[in-house]
């Protein structure tokens, strides 16, 4: 065996994967080659020392809880997307979804201008409006399921342009507030939920979120939300925040919120 052969076999030798014949050949070479011997000694020691770096320990329980939440989220999202094949397609093609969003906006503007001077809309125009609404909703929901946070952010902003009560949009926004991993997207969902603020489900979700959200920015937005909507049902959650929020600004803001809801803090 030559020095080059030792170099080639050394990684197997160090990892204990060289077979008996290879080991014997390497060791025979080392006995007569001080340079290879020194090299092998050093690297063997290094290999052992690498094994002495302690393995970091993760928070397995916390990670499992987050994965369970992601599974729930996915189950919910799958149910939402199980009906329309078009939305599934858009969810898998972010570029197409982005183009569709722009197109829907443009069509909406053109259609709006074309029909604003025609108060007595014909059934055809009404049907066109309905189709546009459906398309807007579909694009919004698909954007909100994109992997990219900036696309989801666009989806949340776009949701403001979907007319009507939009139960599906509302469900998606509530889901985003609860589960989205990106703080900016969650923050935008708080703003977008304001137009649904008269709904009990939204008020309840905002109060729940006060207890569960850990981002100071989202907590501040939620405090403003419950104050704006004068939701006195949020006082308990605000009190908890004012006492135990990790961030001092949040604690101060929560106390301010309690005052503005007409309750002594």
């Amino acid at each position, binding site marked *: 065996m030559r020095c080059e052969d030792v170099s*080639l076999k050394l990684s197997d030798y*160090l990892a204990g994967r060289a077979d008996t014949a290879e080991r014997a050949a390497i060791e025979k070479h080392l006995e007569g080659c001080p340079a290879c011997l020194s090299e092998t*000694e050093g690297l063997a020691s290094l290999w052992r020392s690498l094994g002495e*770096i*302690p393995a*970091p320990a993760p928070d397995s329980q916390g990670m499992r809880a987050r994965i369970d939440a992601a599974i729930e989220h996915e189950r919910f999202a799958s149910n939402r997307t199980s009906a329309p094949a078009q939305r599934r397609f858009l969810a898998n093609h972010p570029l197409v979804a982005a183009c569709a969003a722009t197109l829907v906006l443009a069509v909406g503007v053109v259609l709006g201008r074309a029909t604003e001077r025609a108060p007595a809309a014909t059934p055809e125009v009404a049907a066109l409006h309905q189709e546009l609404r459906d398309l807007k909703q579909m694009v919004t929901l698909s954007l909100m399921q994109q992997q990219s946070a900036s696309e989801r952010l666009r989806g949340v902003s776009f949701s403001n342009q979907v007319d009507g009560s939009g139960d599906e949009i509302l469900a998606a926004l509530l889901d985003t507030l609860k589960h989205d*991993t990106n*703080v900016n997207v969650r923050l935008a969902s708080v703003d977008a939920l304001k137009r649904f603020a008269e709904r009990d489900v939204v008020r309840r979700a905002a109060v729940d979120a006060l207890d569960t959200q850990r981002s*100071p920015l989202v907590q501040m937005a939620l405090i403003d939300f419950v104050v704006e909507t004068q939701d006195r049902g949020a006082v308990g959650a605000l009190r908890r925040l004012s006492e135990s929020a990790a961030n001092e600004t949040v604690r101060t803001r929560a106390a301010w919120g309690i005052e503005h809801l007409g309750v002594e803090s």
Partner: protein
Amino acid sequence: MTMTDEALMQAVQRGDLAKLGALFDRHHLAVFDFLARMTGSRAVAEDLVQDVFERILKYRATWRGDAPFPAWLFRIARNARADHYRRREFTATYTDAMDGEDPAPGPEDRLESENEAARLQRALLRLREDKRELIVLARYREMKYEAIAELLGVDVATIKVRVHRALKELRDIFLTLESRPTCAVKTSLSSSRTI
């Protein structure tokens, strides 16, 4: 009877999403260990593990079942880590510092005591990423060179040579960090032969 990884993944693919929990229980420590040693940060590694399993959920339809599940898993883990660092470069200003999201490898996550293991850990983190990855896979994941070669898309002989070179480079970095005059990696031949 215990289900194989591949059977669990097929169940996930068919819509039995809860089976992902079982795959997580089986593999998250290995993925976490790989990512923690690659990034030097426990917090980043935990976030990336979450990302990896979320990607499995999202891309479950792309699982073809013609390769062992762990190979697919580590491919996703490598991509998640690469995307993480790419995102950090582009979105540094987008990150909400108040949230403490996306933390850089911090001193709290490193071994601080200046013992040999800590110095070697620091040396490992200074090693170029592709070389560090080879050592982490070969030494800590105890992955066979054939598996590493398949994962990285190169032939086995090349992997063996690269592991050897990476080790030599790691040793050089380690020696520059070594404060004591005597080299800690110099040991007797007899001990090196007991590997």
